[in-house]
């Protein structure tokens, strides 16, 4: 049976060049980067070399990159770190209602600590409205956190427009760039963001490593206290193999960005077109153009998401759903709900996350097996009445 992985938003395989780069740091170059001897210096070289590579992804100075354990830690550090360091200035934070839980839960935690959070609504495509955004900024607003692209639907926020508003008003801007990093540019010289979070395993690097961009001059308090690692902003012996892997992954992502963009766009466009021809009553969630080309979130009317995932899995195809059952919660996806999508349609959604290893043959195969699956499940559904094709 074929085995097709279409869940690259969840995680990606480690690129072979990344693994190559990492291996010496798991073997002979095992030193602690804080040590003075040759082993330590060797590790330190790997660490700083990786920092330069990640800096290129953001077009920033290497000294503005800090390594963490992943996207969640970066988001936590950005939000809580800025909030705690600037609480005398104000206690108001703005975010959107479709952020990743790492952002939403960090904000909710701060709410309990006496901060005031505005969760901005989004339109039916998932966009934050810049006018609405601007109106919500107050004198005591200290931080804004708006994701670059959404993990479930792929919508790309008008980051430049939003960040220019905060720049004018002297408010820090953080973006969760976990899903956009390496896929579309995020040039910090052009887009005036102050902080950005990325994760290694979403860009063909290893798990357990991430990074945060912190613009020079941003006031931030560390969350982990200890040694003087990462210029005292993140204590703990550096995960050198992971960091080296992240550096290489960032380098490859930047190198291949245009090619991959075209590759993924052609796959997802062909995929949606074919599915549309073969299956009635399907709809795309999110924006058809202003989205990351790798992600397609599609609702199959009358069929619950998990039943599709299980059926596709039996055919060797791995996909995800933002819907209730997979995440273990009962509610439909908070993202699709925020878009105003009917609960039944939200529960019928599947996220197809394409990646660099996918081919047009994969597209053909899924388009071949999926119509039967949908038909079978619809024939069992009490809420589906066949539309005329």
């Amino acid at each position: 049976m074929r085995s097709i992985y279409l869940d690259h938003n969840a995680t990606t395989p480690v690129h072979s060049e990344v693994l190559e780069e990492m291996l010496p740091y798991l073997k002979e170059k095992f030193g602690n980067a804080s040590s003075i001897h040759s082993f330590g210096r060797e590790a330190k070289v790997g660490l700083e070399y990786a920092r330069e590579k990640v800096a290129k992804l953001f077009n920033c100075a290497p000294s503005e990159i800090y390594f963490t354990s992943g996207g969640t830690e970066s988001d936590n550090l950005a939000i809580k770190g800025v909030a705690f360091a600037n609480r005398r200035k104000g206690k108001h934070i703005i975010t959107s209602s479709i952020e990743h839980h790492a952002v939403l839960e960090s904000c909710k935690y701060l709410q309990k600590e006496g901060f005031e959070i505005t969760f901005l609504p989004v339109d039916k495509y998932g966009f934050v409205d810049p006018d609405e955004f601007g109106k919500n900024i107050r004198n005591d607003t200290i931080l804004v956190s708006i994701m670059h692209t959404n993990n479930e639907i792929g919508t790309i926020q008008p980051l430049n427009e939003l960040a220019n508003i905060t720049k004018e008003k002297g408010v820090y801007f953080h973006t969760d760039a976990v899903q956009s990093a390496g896929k579309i540019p995020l040039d910090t010289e052009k887009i005036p963001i102050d902080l950005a979070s990325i994760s290694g395993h979403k860009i063909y690097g290893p798990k357990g490593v991430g990074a945060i961009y912190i613009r020079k001059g941003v006031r931030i308090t560390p969350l982990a206290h200890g040694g003087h690692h990462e210029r005292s902003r993140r204590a703990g012996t550096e995960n050198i193999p992971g960091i080296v892997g992240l550096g290489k992954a960032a380098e490859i992502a930047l190198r291949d960005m245009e090619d991959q963009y075209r590759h993924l766009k052609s796959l997802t466009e062909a995929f949606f077109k074919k599915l549309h021809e073969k299956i009635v009553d399907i709809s795309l969630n999110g924006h058809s153009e202003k989205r990351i080309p790798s992600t397609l979130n599609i609702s199959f009317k009358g069929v619950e998401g998990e039943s599709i995932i299980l059926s596709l899995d039996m055919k060797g195809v791995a996909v995800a759903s933002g819907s209730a059952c997979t995440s273990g919660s009962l509610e439909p996806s908070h993202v699709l709900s925020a878009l105003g999508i009917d609960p039944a349609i939200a529960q019928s959604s599947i996220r197809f996350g394409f990646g660099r290893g996918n081919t047009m043959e994969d597209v053909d195969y899924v388009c071949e097996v999926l119509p039967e699956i949908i038909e079978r499940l619809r024939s069992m559904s009490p809420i589906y009445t066949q539309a005329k094709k």
Partner: protein
Amino acid sequence: MAYSIKVMDHFTNPRNVGEIENADGIGEIGNPVCGDIMKLYIKVQDNRIVDAKFKTFGCGAAIATSSMITELVKNKTLEEAEKISKQTVAEALDGLPANKMHCSNLAADALQKAIEDYKRKKEKNV
């Protein structure tokens, strides 16, 4: 989260899918917000359930429990059928993942509703 072989069997080859025309009792439960909707049809003769069919919108567990209950109720008296609980259905399927025990284990409730519906209809006709 992993399903038992039995759950996957009932999900892949569900028994008794469909509707019963002129059913003696219909039980409908669930809502789209929680992601599971089940409709159970029963045919009753001489106080005994002689046929049961279902239609379900839901996850693997929802479909498997629906399928399982149609097997469990057949040829049971109404009194026996009334004793079938969520636990009975889950056990018959060799267990369900913890998070599915309540949200997707609707079949027993649908059955009770179908029996109530049958009794209501019968009273009307008397």
